[in-house]
Structures are given as C-alpha cells and as structure tokens.
C-alpha cells in the first residue's frame, strides 16, 4: 500500500505539478488548497506526510503547521516556500524539513524518502 502524501498549496498549477511528480514516485497524493482543508483531510482520512506551502491566504503555512502538530504531533511535515529565510528556524524546531520551492523537485523527492526512512513509515 502506497504512502499517502498530502500536498497543501493555494496555487492550482503547483498542486498539479506536485501531484504528477509525486504520483509518479509511487505516492498516493491528496491535494488541499488551504490550511483548513488540509486539517480536515488529516482528521478525516489520515495521511502519512504533508508537503505544506507557507504563504497562503486565510491561514498561512506556519499556523497550519501548528494546528497540524496539535492534531498529530508525529505527522511529518515538509514546509515549502519561495522564501529561503525561514529554513534555518523551521527545520530546527517546527517542521521536519524546509524546502525552497523550485521547478526541480529532486530535493523534495529525496527529502520525502529520507523522512520515510528516518521515521520508518
């Protein structure tokens, strides 16, 4: 059974890109366009890993991250952002990883694999 990865991003094209790329990697990819939708999916369906964008309307990735951790402290979350400046902070004490968004998804794919391996999911 393939691992269930939730991709949270407000941009449809990005969600599509993630879905295609990660599906191709063999993951069961679920999409959410906001933090609240992501929380619902996590609560209702359960996921193995979340790829979370930071800059989003309504509630941003940071707030969503806090809510997700409240819901499930052990749920691995990879933060993705166009900004690199939060990387140091969030890898240390908030998310499991922090990836600067780029068209080349090699780093993301490798990070997912590492976390799965580390956490033995």
């Amino acid at each position, binding site marked *: 059974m393939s691992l269930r990865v939730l991709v949270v991003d407000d*941009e449809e*094209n*990005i969600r*599509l*890109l993630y879905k*295609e*790329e990660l599906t191709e990697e063999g993951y069961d990819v679920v999409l959410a366009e906001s933090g609240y939708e992501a929380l619902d999916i996590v609560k209702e369906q359960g996921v193995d890993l979340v790829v979370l964008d930071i*800059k989003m309307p309504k509630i941003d990735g940071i707030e969503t*991250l*806090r809510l997700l*951790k*409240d819901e499930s402290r052990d749920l691995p979350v990879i933060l993705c952002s*166009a*900004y*690199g*400046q939060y990387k140091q*902070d969030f890898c*240390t*004490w*908030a998310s499991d990883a922090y990836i*600067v*968004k*780029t*068209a*080349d*998804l090699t780093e993301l794919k490798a990070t997912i694999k590492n976390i799965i391996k580390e956490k033995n999911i």
Partner: protein
Amino acid sequence: MSEFDVLAQVVEITHSKEAIQSKIDKVINYLKDKLDLNGIHLLLFKEDENMFLINYSSNNELVNQHKWIPPDDPALFDAVTAKRNVFIDDLRPGADFDSELIDHASGCNAMFALPICNSDSFIGVMLGEKHGELTKLDEKLLSLISIEITGMIYNESNTIKLKEKIHELSTSFSISKLFIKNDKLDDLCNKMVEHISTLLYSNTVMLELFAQGTGTTVQKYVFNKDKVYDLDGALIQGIIDETKRRCRPTYIKDASTDARCSGSDPDFRSALFAPVEYNSDVIGIIALFDKEANLFVTKKHFSEDDFNILISMTNQLANFVENLLMTKERESIIKEKEDKASELKILYDVSKAMMTTMKLDDLLQKILTAVTISGGLGFNRAGLFLINHRMNTLQGMLCIGPDTGEEADAIWTELKKEEKTLLQWITPDLSSGSRKRSQFDEKVKSIRIPLDEEENAMIRAIDQKKAVMVTNGSYLSNKAISLDSTSYAVVPLISKDKVIGVIVVDNSITKQPITSDDLSFLTLFSNQAGLAIENSTLYSNLKKTLSELKDTHSKLLHSEKLAALGEMAAGVAHEIKNPLMAIGGFARRLDKRFAEDSPDKTYINIIIKEVSRLEKILNEILNFSKEERENNFALNDINKIINETLIMFDNEMLENNITTETNLNYDLPMVLCNYQQVKQAVINLVNNSCQAMPRSGKLSVTTRKSLVRNKDSVVIEISDTGGGVNNEVLHNIFNPFFTTKDGGTGLGLAITHRFIANHSGSIEVDNKPGLGVTFIINLPVKMDEEE
C-alpha cells in the same frame, strides 16, 4: 543875667546839633565864666579800669594828661557812694580832704560834685571849685544843669547803643546773607572773618578748619585790622588745641590776669575761641583777639554778649558746612546714580544688540565695538581671547583699535562726524568682510598662550576668575609680537561659573589711566558678554547637531526606502517564483516525454535552463534581503535596548498596574549583536511577563557583567511576579507552538531562544511556582569567529 538865663543858655547848648564833645566843652566853659568858677571838670567812670578819667575840663592840661582818678577820691566820695549832689563851702586844705582835683593853692573855698547817673547806672561826676561862696541859687542852678547834662549824656549813650545794635544787626544780616549766597567754603570763610571782626569790633579774627576725622589743619583764614598777633605761637595754639579737645568755647576776658596765659606774656588783652562742631567732631575754631574801643566806650575786653554772638556765628558756620557737605554728598550720590543709569543704559543697549545675532564672529565684533566706542565703555583698544580646551590654549579671536596715534585721530574724527547712538553702532551686521583689519588685530589672532603658562596676566585672570590690572608690563607674553602698551587690564569672560576667555583693554593712545570704576563696569559687561558668547557657541553646536540629525534622518529614510524596496522585491520574486516553478516543473515533465533525439527536446531544455536561470536570479534577490535582515551585527548598548523596550510597554504596564524596577549597570561593554534580534528577544520576554501579570505585579530588569567560559559576557535578567510556570511543563516552554495562554502562538519564547542561540548566547529559567519567573539571558560581548 539871671540864673534863668544861664539855665536857658545851657539848655540851648545841650539841645544844639553839635557833637557831644563840643556841647560839653561849651557848657563847661560857659558855666566857668557865668558862675565865676575857678575850674570845672567832667569825669567819666571807666568800668574796665574802675577809675574816673577827666574827659572834659576847663583846664585843658588835665584832659591832655589823661588823668585817672580813683572812685575813693575825697572830692568825689559822697557823690559816688551816695549818688547825691555835694556842695562844700568851707573848703580847707588838710589831710581829711586831700584831693588832687582841688587846687588849694588858688585859694578856693567852695566846691561841688554832682553825680551824672540814673537809678541803673553811673556815668560820671561833674566837679567844680570856686573862690568865694556858692549861693543856694547857684547850687540849685548847678543841680538843674547836672540833670540836663545827665540827660544829654544818656541820650547820646542810648544813641550810640542804638547805633551799635543797628551795626550788630546789619552785620549779622550780612553774615547770614553770606551763608545763603555762598556755596564755596573758601569765599564764605574769607568774608566771614572780616564780618565777624566788624560785628564784634575785634582787631583780629582767625578761622582755622580741620580735616574731619584726623583733625589736622587744612585751611586758615585771618582778618587783621591793625595789630598782628603770633597766631602760630605756643600760647594761642595751646588754647586752640584745648578748645578743640574740650569741644567747648574758651573765653579769656583779661589775658593779663587769666591763669591760662600766666607765664606766657600774651600779646593780646582779651580773646574768644569757639569750636565749629559737626557730627560731634570739631571741624574748625574761630578765634577773636582784642576788642577795639569805640568813641564812647573804652572797654577793650570781650563781653558775654560778644561771646554769645560768636557762638551763634559758629553754629551758623557749622550748619553751613553741614549743608555744604550734604549738598556735596547729594551731588556725589546724584552723579553716582547718573553714572549707574548710564552704565545700565549701555549694558541694556549692548545686550539688545548682542541678541540680534547668534553668529560668533559677529557677536565678538559687537562686544569689542561696545568696549571701544566712546558712547560705550570707551577704551582705546580691546582684544578678545577664548579658551581652546582641545589645544589647552588661550586663543586670540579678535581685536579692535587703531595701530597708531595718527590712525586713532583719523578714525575718531570720522566717528565724531557720524552722530550715531551706541545701539546704532553695534546693531548692524558687523561680520561683513569689508572691515579694515588692523595689524594689532592680526597679531592678536595669531596668539596662542598655553593655559599653564605662568607670569601671564591673562592666564592669571582666568585662574583667579577676576579682573587683573597691569600698570607696568608687556601687553603680551610673546615678545616677538609685544605691543607698546605698558598699562592694561584683563577681565575674564565668565559663563555659568566657567571662564571661557578674557577681554583685554588698554588706553595706549590717550594714556588715560584705567580706573577701578572702569574695571568694575568692564567686569559687569564681560559677564554679560560671556553669557552671550556661550549662548552663541551652544547655538552653533545645536545647529551642527541638528544638521547631523537631518543627515541621519535622511540616511534612515534612505535605508528604509531600501528595505521597502527589498520587501517589494521579495514579494515580487515570490509571485514570479510560483508560476516559474509551474513552468519549469511542467517543462521537466514534458522533457521526460520526448526522446533524446527529438528536436523539440532542445526547446524544452531551453525552457528548463532559462527557468533555472531565472530561479537562481530570484533566489539571489531573496537571499540578499535575508542577509540584509539577519547579518546586521554591530556594537550595541544593551541598556539602551532595554530602556527602549520598557518604554514600549509603558501604557500596558500602567493599565495592568505593574511597577518596574530597573537595576542597570551602565559600565556594561558594548555587545556585538543583531540589534533587531536582541530587541525582539527582550520584547518577547517582557511581553510574557506583562501577560503573566494582568492585574498587578512587579517587573524587574537587571543588567550586569559576567564571565562565561572565560569570555566577557553581559547578563540580562527579567523577573516578574506573575506566579511562575508549572514545573511539569517547564521543559516545553522553548518549544515552538507550546503555550499555556489562550490565544498564544507559542512562538515568542521559541523565537527568543533561537535569536539568543544565533548570538552563541544562552537563556535560562529560574522558576518559582506560585511566585514568579526569572529569565536569565547570557550574551557574549564578542562572538568567536568560528561561531
């Protein structure tokens, strides 16, 4: 001729308008003839001598002999003692009646002695002798004639007394007029001695004036009619000294018998000495010597009346001197007041003019113009020196004054033509470059005197904070530029009890001495000038600071603009980055679908490559903004950061009734840190404390120096009385999203921890559950390079 005719003839003579001497002579001779008398005489009584003098006689020889007869002469005896008419018919020579007035040899056998007197006074006796008998009718006739002569003499005496009184009054009036008309002591004294001599028939009058306080003679006024006395001799000077010492008049009625003159052989017969008293001090003595006899009165001694008149004169003189001195004092006070008013006017004008400028050069020019202009302080030349603390020297700033006498004449003549007030001279802007600079000015400007130089009047004035007057010395210590003035004054310029420089003045052209009044006024003026200079300097500093502030503000604006630009760039980059990611991502997906040799793959690769290049550019832009924000390390004052933070919470703490106690060590070293991060860390801690004390409490902030792992550190302690943290959750407090507060984000302490860690520092918690919590931040002063 009947007795009646004789009497009628005598009455006619006595009432004629002739002089009394002539009338008496005529009566005597007429009686001798008509009554067939052997001789007839009129003896007048001289009080001073207590003798009778034969003033008139039918025998001229007796008058010419100036014959004195004692009152106890047998011929006069009853007439004098009993004041009654004496007629003797049986005159016989013998021891019981031996009078030289009676010529026994001529064989006279009758005589008469008739007193010339009234109930109050005794004038004299009319005496006569006759051959043969004096009839009862003769006796009656002679008695009536003696009454007529008595009346005549009394009338004459009264007339003389009246004339004397008139003389006394008119002379007194003249003296009084002297006091009113004269305002010069010399004139008054000269006239006074003359008038007193006239008034009291004194041969000599001397007025000696003494200096107040010392008592030494300052002036002597003498009026001499006839005889000259030894006024400076020991006798007179001794009496004067005694009168002065006792401060009471001395009356020597008869020097020949007076004990004070015994053994001195006085050259005067009678004298009066009266002190002139002012403010319990004897300021003079009036001395009178010898009274002159008048026509009728032969007294040569001063009387009690004379004495009283003299006392009254001295009192008037004392009053006059008092008035004169008071007038002089009043005049001097008025002058002093006028001088002060004029000084105040000058000071007012100068301060008004000084207020018109804040430019130091202009101000100095105004100050020295006021010191040298004739309507101002009027010195010939003036220089101004200010202390240069950086160089530790006294530095010449400006000098005003002519170089030579000729130049001075030319300038002063020119200035006189322009009739301007002081204010008009110094009000206009004087700092224009058109002024002619004197050599003196150039010399002064080149002067630098070390503040520790000894033997320099200017440095002495600075050290002693008071004016220094130099009457014989070189103007300046530097001989190479010494000027020709040998007399000058230096006053310090003082502002707020601090000497900031000196003003040097001289009168090298006019050679007029600098008085202590000049110096006092200059000192007063220099205090005002000192304040004005200080104000001008402060104003200039303020202007400089303001300009720096403007500069900083403009730089800040610039940097804020840059920051805003950075923010904007970051925002734009983000917006571009997402679509770019989609383009790049899908291009990569397409790329996988084309065969390696497909020509379309080349195009796809171009898209992938260009997107990568754009992403790289965007990342550089975003990274730059990040560096700008995060790597901004500089030396910062931790106390300043804390004070700024506390100010931010003022209102909140007031509302929550929180008191603050700060114990900041202001000797802390500057810490190399990111200002924003440290400030944010402190803000977060203070914010937590305030939230822990919603109703009331106490916030304490302490800073101190510390040594951690052999490195200088600064410790910040922030304590509250908010009840502390439950020990069970204490280990979570620095975790992100951990919060015990409703609505808290749980990021405050996490961010604080992160920021302190960025500085290689540490943060510890001293938790007292139920009481409060203390956060202890330790920041190394300098981070290790590898860190």
